[in-house]
């Protein structure tokens, strides 16, 4: 891959994030206004100070107008961005490049999704007219196919696989129980997880991320301007994106134990940030735990664990809140639910808090104090065999 990256050229100087809940009383506009006002306050700027806006939403609105109208922006460029479940992350990526290009000094990214107005379970994509031959499986079913494939390939028996997935679910709910913005704020026992009704394959309710409404926002400026807005800017070290070509769906050599798009994205991201050993250099990661087996495979694709060993690292607590490399310290999609346009920014919000030392004490990770400096956020959209991948690396210090 040949991406130059924009390491340390832009910084996030303010963020906001609403609670992610089934927010019946609040509209999309309400959510965007709340997240945006928090971000403006966080950076100490007004909406007129912001030169341009990026609005990430998968399907809660079209064009830039919903954001312009909600915030009553006066003659500002607003770009609506959609890239599956990585929509929020992609909006920040595009906004960051606009700043790095010199086109704008100060920009804002707002990601928002009003999922719970459909009346249906889960996430549901707008139907695009088609010939009727595309599969209509749920995401849960597509990701459930990882479980037998991974177990078979690495000789992990069914009971152990179950314990690994349970550990991931319990960990993320443990973390979410310590986060006031999370939808699910209770710790869940292994027994509850394993006795939950099955949704698809061997995946039960607690193996699946929730669904929620929410919004998050970030304000981005050139790195050299960052300290004008805050004492604790967060510098962008890497922004990487891969859109898969769907080959996994039709290639018999694809074995459902890895996401090649993410492995390639990680290589690019680490190159941009100058990371040579992700396992020892990354302090924390917010990853796309849409389903528990997804998080398991991500640990290998993100190079946190060697191939075939992530299950052991999970069981050893490597990725627990107080572990060597905490993953989803905010509770992840498991605890938050997944308002598609907002999730990527919610992940960055946790990185923003942890890197600035602003996470509440009960959720503070130890790896930063131990000298690690980088936070990683990772978003994916799509399914095994056909997905988009986003990875960012962020740090509180310029290199």
């Amino acid at each position: 891959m040949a991406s130059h990256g924009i390491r340390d050229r832009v910084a996030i100087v303010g963020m906001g994030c609403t609670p992610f809940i089934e927010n019946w009383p609040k509209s999309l506009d309400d959510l965007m206004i709340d997240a945006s006002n928090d971000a403006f306050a966080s950076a100490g700027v007004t909406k007129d100070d912001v030169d341009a806006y990026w609005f990430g939403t998968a399907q809660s609105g079209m064009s830039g107008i919903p954001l312009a109208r909600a915030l009553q922006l006066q003659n500002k460029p607003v770009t609506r961005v959609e890239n599956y479940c990585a929509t929020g992350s992609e909006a920040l990526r595009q906004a960051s490049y606009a700043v790095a290009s010199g086109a704008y000094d100060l920009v804002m990214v707002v990601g928002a999704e009003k999922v719970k107005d459909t009346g249906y379970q889960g996430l549901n994509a707008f139907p695009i007219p088609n010939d009727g031959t595309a599969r209509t499986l749920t995401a849960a079913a597509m990701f459930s196919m990882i479980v037998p494939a991974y177990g078979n390939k690495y000789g992990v028996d069914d009971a152990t696989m179950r314990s690994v997935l349970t550990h991931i679910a319990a960990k993320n709910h443990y973390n979410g129980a310590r986060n006031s913005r999370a939808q699910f704020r209770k710790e869940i026992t292994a027994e509850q997880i394993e006795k939950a009704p099955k949704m698809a394959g061997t995946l039960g309710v607690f193996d699946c991320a929730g669904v929620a409404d929410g919004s998050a926002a970030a304000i981005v400026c050139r790195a050299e301007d960052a300290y004008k807005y805050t004492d604790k800017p967060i510098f962008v070290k890497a922004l990487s994106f891969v859109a898969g070509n769907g080959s996994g769906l039709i290639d018999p050599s694809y074995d459902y134990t890895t996401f090649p798009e993410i492995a390639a994205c990680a290589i690019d991201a680490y190159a941009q940030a100058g990371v040579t050993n992700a396992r020892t250099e990354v302090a924390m990661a917010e990853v796309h735990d849409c389903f528990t087996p997804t998080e398991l495979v991500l640990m290998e694709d993100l190079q946190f664990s060697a191939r075939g060993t992530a299950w052991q690292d999970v069981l050893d607590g490597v990725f627990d809140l107080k572990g060597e490399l905490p993953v989803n310290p905010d509770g992840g999609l498991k605890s938050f639910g997944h308002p598609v346009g907002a999730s990527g920014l919610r992940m960055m919000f946790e990185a923003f808090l942890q890197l600035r030392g602003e996470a509440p004490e009960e959720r503070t990770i130890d790896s930063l104090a131990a000298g690690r400096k980088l936070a990683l956020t990772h978003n994916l959209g799509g399914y095994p065999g056909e997905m988009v991948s986003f990875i960012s690396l962020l740090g509180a210090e310029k290199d």
Partner: protein
Amino acid sequence: MRGITSWGAYLPYRRLDRTQISAFIGQGGGRGTRTVASFDEDTTTMGVEASRLALRGSDTVPEAVLFSTVMPAYADKTNATTIHAALRLPGSVPAFDMGSSVRSAAGALRLGLLSTGSRLVVTADQRTGLAGSADESAGGDAAAALLLGDGDSVVADYLGGASATDEFLDRWRQPGEIRSKVWDDKFSEVTYVALGRSAYADALAATGLAADAIDAVVVAAPTTRIGSALASKLGAARVVADLTDVVGATGAAQPSVLLINALENAEPGQTIALVVLGDGAEVFIFRTTPALATYRPAKPIAEQLEGGAPLAYGRFLSWRGMINVEPPRRPEPARPSGTAAARSKDWKFGFVGSRDSVDGTVFMPPSRVSFDGTRTDQMEPAPMADVKGTIATFTVDRLAYSPSPPIVFAVVDFDGGGRLPIELTDTDADEVQIGGRVEMTFRRLFTADGIHNYFWKGKLIRG
């Protein structure tokens, strides 16, 4: 010599034990089992399956397709064109629907035999009625395809026949209704026996055969009682069983299904008479040829009768729309696009992918660009409908929309290349395993805005 050159009978996989009916609903039912088309089957899809079996045993490309059913999937729009597309026949081959009665099915066979050149005569039916009714219990679902032609490949030579047409009320149904009504079955019996005897005598006269020269007679009748009443009076050496105890009365499909069953149990040189009772009587007399000795049907009826799996009566009722079952709380699928479907006709109806002519990679659906992205439009068609595959991995989706949840779904690797994640049908969740073998079957995925969404599914190969 003109007659039948190949055939295919299709019995759907599910079987309803008739004793379940009265236990559940307090009336109706009876002995034996009937065949039940799955929730994703209709007369068109069953017609496709029967036709595939008929053509598998022959190199002939039919010069015309005639399709007849009492229960067409579409009115106004032709159903035979769907069959035509699934069989990948050239556009120059005409395909027509013929009416909506059992008589039309006999008529399709009659017209096919009276014409020249190869003809594919396809008949299919789903027979049911209100819960606890005689039709529900005695009916069956099936399809049959007879390939007609001339010359040495004829395995059953058509010697001649006769017709008796009459206007009277036996069974009737308004288009779109699920059930037929019946006037007075004793009146029907008396009327049909007279019509059948008259036409049979005319057919013997036309062929110059004596009654005792007929080795076997097959009677396709609205009910077993009517069929038996006539058959006993025809003087043939043998009456072929009507399969109602294991299949049911299969309406428009029944004449061909019963004829095929007779042929599959016949020796060369035997004379077989087919009598079809439906708003009159149609008699066809065939003599099997030496070519029968080497003809091997792709999937004999006896083999299909040994397959099959039981179906609970409650699920039968939900499949037939008699009971509404709570669906998953997910959006129902949108209607397929007519224009998009037209563009991808070979894929959607014919299951034709593309094969990279340089490196052999198979694409499903077809692609214009090679796997590595370096070449465009260097592909050749890859027909995959008759290619078998192996399950690489699988899952069961309890949340996705389906007319009959849950969805059993597998990633299938096809022999000789190509992979497709696809729904499995006629397959229970506990049957599927990695390494299982799969064949393709043409199905109706769902119906939205009155548009039937036809495509292919996988199906376990058992035994």
